[in-house]
């Protein structure tokens, strides 16, 4: 087994198998119902968000409780530039970078005044920032109707390249590609790119600087790291991933409203990062997948189970989902602070701590 694991070709065969499985996945899911493809797409969106937040929380150790605001900024940027609301219909490859940039700008805007603060203050300020963004989205319908208020923006354009639209169902090579399936492949592509960027960032000079700041900011500064600039960079990068995710979310849902960007969403993404393992890309992906799919599976099992046992629904799946999030946060922090799949540094730290005790 060990010989097989160390074999260089075995690694590539493994990668190829995973790639094949990922390529075939939507068809397997589609046979169980298109709903599952949509759920998978949302799960990938959450992976994108978690990876973005992981840069801020996991790599740089800055607790951001308003992360969903950047998602909202990206989503609204896309919705405003590609919907009948303003009559603008720009192509998505123009808007997504704009959304990422605007989100990054918001990240800097938030970061600049607050990064001098200690970690726990930062958490509250980011939380407040998230709320401010939501309040503005809710109210910027008068005197000039920018966001259309709580009614949200509807009929948002789907992604399209020339005649190829992501909303239509097409037949190709004898296979039917429905809208969600096409989006799945696009999301998969973006996800692979984001994972790659994350891994490279983690091992880069900046990544090391982030880690140094996370472990000991004073020492990091003494080593010549421009801490404010590097922290700002973490904020901006995390935010831009959120912005891209938001743009894709707007296109896939074709409708957005401030409802989608409440505090609970920020907490959800944070739960994913914490549960999976802060700072570890693989762990974060697992955390995001788990917390996206377990609630959906619950939805399909808890309801019938309760119907059979009590004759009616006692506890809504939504409530169970939130209770799971809450419990996950508490239990992981107490029992396994590194998460399900801790990053190498954390693992070393944790075992070192045990020896010291």
């Amino acid at each position: 087994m060990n010989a097989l694991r160390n074999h260089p070709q075995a690694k590539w065969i493994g990668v190829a198998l995973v790639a094949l499985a990922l390529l075939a996945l939507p068809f397997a899911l589609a046979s169980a119902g298109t709903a599952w493809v949509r759920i998978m797409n949302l799960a990938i969106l959450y992976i994108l968000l978690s990876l973005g937040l992981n840069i801020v929380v996991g790599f740089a150790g800055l607790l951001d409780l308003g992360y969903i605001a950047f998602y909202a900024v990206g989503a609204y940027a896309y919705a405003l530039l590609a919907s009948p609301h303003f009559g603008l219909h720009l192509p998505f490859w123009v808007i997504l970078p704009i959304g990422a940039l605007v989100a990054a700008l918001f990240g800097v805007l938030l970061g600049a005044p607050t990064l001098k603060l200690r970690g726990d203050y930062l958490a509250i300020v980011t939380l407040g920032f998230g709320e401010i963004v939501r309040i503005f989205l809710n109210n910027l319908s008068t005197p000039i109707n920018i966001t259309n208020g709580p009614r949200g923006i509807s009929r948002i354009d789907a992604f399209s390249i020339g005649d190829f639209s992501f909303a239509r169902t097409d037949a190709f090579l004898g296979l039917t590609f429905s809208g969600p399936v096409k989006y799945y492949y696009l999301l998969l592509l973006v996800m692979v790119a984001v994972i790659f960027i994350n891994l490279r960032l983690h091992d880069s000079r900046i990544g090391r600087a982030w880690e140094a700041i996370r472990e000991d900011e004073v020492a990091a500064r003494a080593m010549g790291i421009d801490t404010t600039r590097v922290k700002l960079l973490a904020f901006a990068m995390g935010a831009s991933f959120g912005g891209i995710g938001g743009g894709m979310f707007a296109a896939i849902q074709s409708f957005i409203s401030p409802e989608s960007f409440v505090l609970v969403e920020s907490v959800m993404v944070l739960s994913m990062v914490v549960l999976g393992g802060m700072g570890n890309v693989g762990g974060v992906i697992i955390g995001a997948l788990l917390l996206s799919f377990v609630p959906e599976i619950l939805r399909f099992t808890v309801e019938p189970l309760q119907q059979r046992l009590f004759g009616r629904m006692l506890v809504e799946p939504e409530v169970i989902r939130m209770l799971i999030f809450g419990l996950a946060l508490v239990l992981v922090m107490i029992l396994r602070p590194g998460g399900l799949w801790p990053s190498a540094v954390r693992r070393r730290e944790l075992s070192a701590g045990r020896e010291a005790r």
Partner: protein
Amino acid sequence: MDHAWRVEKLRAPRPALLQSDLLMDIFIQQLINGITLGAVYAMVALGYTMVYGIIQLINFAHGEVVMVGALIAFSVINALAGSGLPPVLIVLIATACAAPLCMLLGYSMERIAYRPLRGAPRLAPLITAIGVSIILQHIALLIWTRNPLAFPQIIGIESYHAGEATITNVQIAIIGISTLMMAGLAFLVYRTRLGAAMRATAQNAPIAGLMGVDANKIIAATFVIGAGLAAVAGVMVANYYGIAHYTMGANLGLKAFCAAVLGGIGNLPGAMLGGVLLGVVEALGAGYIGDLTNNVFGSNYQDVFAFIVLILVLVFRPSGLLGEKVGDRA
């Protein structure tokens, strides 16, 4: 006021004068509303600031204690509303039920979610606190449903007028009760053995331990006292607005935290001052933002003020109004 009255007597009343009189009344009205709200903020802010003072933890779930207190009081008042007891007695019974239960909740919170993490990195207890907050909200949702619950209006509202401004008996009661409770807290902290132990632990926990103070007990006591104040605040605010909801704690808690930071976190008089100031800022802001911005922004932006105050304080005076300069204890 006196002056305006004399001028009016001498000449025929002019619209401009009337308007300035009205403006004054609106100002006083908003000031009364603001102080009432601020008294509630102050009570909740005290819980944040005491816990922070002792273990440098932002007890994120503190707002949920307010919510639980309000909802327990709702159940009790609802059950007793038709019993023919005097309304004031019913509210007192409700508070007497809510406060001990919330204190127990505060104790369990500390025991289960925070004590195991003492000495862990700062982020850890903050994250469990968020978890506790979500769990409490959704347990409350299961018990009290997701609908906003209208408090039975058992206390007849009486208004006292001063010009166009009015103050109700409920407002007077809120301001009076919170003043009393804060005085009681001040006595407890500055004049009793327990208070001395709390202050010693806040200054230097290891040394206090050497002097025979059981830090764990003191920390638990701090959580319990904070939770008691929060429960009373919850009963008051729910009676004031006449409504309770399982999400009411989060927003209130956040604002109270802003108040604690405004006053200087860890500083008791600071929390009181910050609470009242924030209440007044919010009420005046909501009352005047329409006029100031030519109705571009309306009072629906009320919730933004607290956060703007928070950010301004943190940027320009992170130690708050009454706080001392604290070093980086990262």
